């Protein structure tokens, strides 16, 4: 009887995951979809705790289980509530790493059981345990690197021949696992732990050299890895809800990764193998004698913007870092009151994650209808008087269109240089996150407005009010 109820719990869980994901892909239903999936997850979790049985035996160690759930819930809720909207991508990466570590730990414990019991385990069971271990560990180590990179704790790092080292490590992982799985040697359990260590190292080396601008793609990819690791657990315990949830995320995450690569017009292999750091040096030297930049004062900016007919704001990560989304919305309101037509041009990969800018601007109550996607915006630029670029860099770099030697060549960008005047707000002349010089800043139509985005925008708003 109880086991039948558990079956129904798992059925409900699986269906809510599907419905939840479906609803998450429409703006009106997204929030409800998330809650539905969360409810299904709760049913599946509590169903497992109270109803699960194996060979007629129910689970024990309730004190441990509930203590773990309690600690995880309190810590998870606090971290998720406290995190700033700008730091969202690294938070997702961190949680993803936790999931990967969880999957790897399950494999470690299950392997320990097999190793101690002395009973020979089936090859396929071992295969699943190894797969869960490797994928989980790579996902964990990779996500931690991505997390540390996004919040600036570590920099891109690569050495000569790193790709070859990576391939060698990967080959070792696969060969050692295959050897153990198919010959099941007695007393050679340390191979398993060696594979664990190598997988962690591989995850580290896999993400370390990948350049900043590609981090969203990596997080999405690692997200789908963890999904597959969870699905391994589904096979291990014949558990349909783990299987559905894991595989759904695995396939959805892969598609999302591909969509992101498409937005940058780069094949996935290029993102993973061709790290930005390597070819960047050749690119940057050719820009050193690019000519002079022109600075513009806040007063002048206020005047040109007030008398413009049409202004397009291009937000980037700099806006997010400065927490300037609210002031930005204020600027938009002040200008609209003066009869200026204001809209926002959102590049698909602006910020650190696709859709990151939309989330930030939505937080500041910016009207949904004012956010233009890249294609729409590019049609508007020729008839635009002023483009204000707030902390965006790579997504407006014309080198992506004109310079085949540039690492971002081929990525669709916003054609801001078609507008009559371009004002670029940046903190300094340092190149953007991808580490590439931007010829736009030297364009005669471009004026630089240096300073922290929030600070500059506040002064700009005050100035426009007094014009």
């Amino acid at each position, binding site marked *: 009887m109880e086991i039948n109820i558990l079956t129904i719990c798992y059925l409900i869980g699986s269906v809510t*995951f*599907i419905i*939840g*994901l479906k609803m*998450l892909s429409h*703006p009106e239903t997204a*929030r409800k979809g*998330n809650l539905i*999936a969360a409810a299904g*997850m709760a049913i599946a979790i509590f169903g497992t705790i109270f109803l699960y049985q194996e060979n007629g035996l129910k*689970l*024990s*160690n309730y004190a*441990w*289980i509930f203590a*773990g*759930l309690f600690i*995880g*819930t309190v810590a*998870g*809720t606090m971290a998720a*509530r406290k995190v700033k*909207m700008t730091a*969202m991508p690294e938070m*997702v990466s961190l*949680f*993803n790493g936790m*999931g990967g*570590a*969880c999957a790897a*730990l399950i494999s*470690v*414990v299950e392997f320990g059981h097999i190793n101690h019991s002395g009973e020979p385990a089936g090859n396929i069971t071992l295969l699943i345990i190894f797969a869960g271990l490797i994928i989980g560990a790579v996902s964990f180590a990779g996500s931690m690197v991505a997390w540390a990179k996004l919040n600036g704790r570590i920099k891109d790092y690569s050495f000569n021949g790193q790709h070859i080292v990576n391939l060698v490590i990967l080959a070792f992982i696969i060969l050692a696992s295959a050897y153990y799985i198919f010959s099941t040697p007695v007393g050679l359990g340390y191979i398993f732990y060696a594979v664990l260590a190598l997988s962690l190292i591989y995850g580290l080396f896999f993400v370390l050299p990948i350049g900043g601008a590609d981090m969203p793609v990596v997080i999405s990819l690692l*997200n789908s890895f*963890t*999904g597959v690791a*969870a699905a391994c657990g*589904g*096979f291990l*315990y*014949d558990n349909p*809800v*783990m*299987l559905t949830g*894991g*595989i*759904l*995320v695995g*396939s959805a995450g*892969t*598609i999302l990764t591909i969509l*992101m690569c498409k*937005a940058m017009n780069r094949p996935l292999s290029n993102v993973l193998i061709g790290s930005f750091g390597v070819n960047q040096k050749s690119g940057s030297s050719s820009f050193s004698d690019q000519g002079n930049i022109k600075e513009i004062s806040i007063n002048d900016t206020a005047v040109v913007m007030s008398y413009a007919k049409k202004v397009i704001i291009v937000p980037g990560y700099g806006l997010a870092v400065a927490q300037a989304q609210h002031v930005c919305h204020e600027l938009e309101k002040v200008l609209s009151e003066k009869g200026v037509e204001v809209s926002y041009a*959102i590049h*698909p990969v602006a910020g650190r994650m*696709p*859709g990151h800018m939309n989330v930030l601007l*939505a937080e500041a109550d910016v009207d*949904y209808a004012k*956010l233009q996607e890249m294609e729409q915006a590019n049609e508007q630029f020729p008839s635009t008087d002023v483009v204000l670029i707030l902390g965006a860099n790579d997504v407006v770099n014309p080198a992506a269109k004109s310079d085949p030697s540039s690492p971002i060549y081929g990525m669709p960008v916003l054609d801001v240089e078609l507008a009559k005047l371009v004002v670029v707000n940046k903190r300094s002349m340092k190149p953007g996150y991808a580490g590439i010089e931007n010829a736009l800043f030297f364009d005669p139509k471009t004026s630089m407005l240096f300073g922290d985005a929030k600070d500059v925008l506040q002064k700009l708003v005050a100035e426009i009010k007094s014009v």
Partner: protein
Amino acid sequence: MEELLNWFTIHQQMIYIVILSIFLGIEVIGRVPSVLHTPLMSGANAIHGVVIIGAIIVMGKAESDNYLALILGFLAVILGTLNVVGGFVVTDRMLEMFKKKK
């Protein structure tokens, strides 16, 4: 080889689930507007936290004198819970902001 074929027959339902879920995932994500990419990734991140169920099973099966299994299982439960709860709460916070706009 024989073992593999047997395994396929025994687990055929699961294999069907895998295949259908792959297509379902592709279908569901295929037409998502780019505005929702971040919340969607975050939501998917919370859903793969379902791995917590495996952690609970590991924990619940551990003999009460096998401290290594207990400690590792306990860690796994904490990490899995972090993934699930943190994931859903973060996603909800992001989506809360979309709701306000009229």
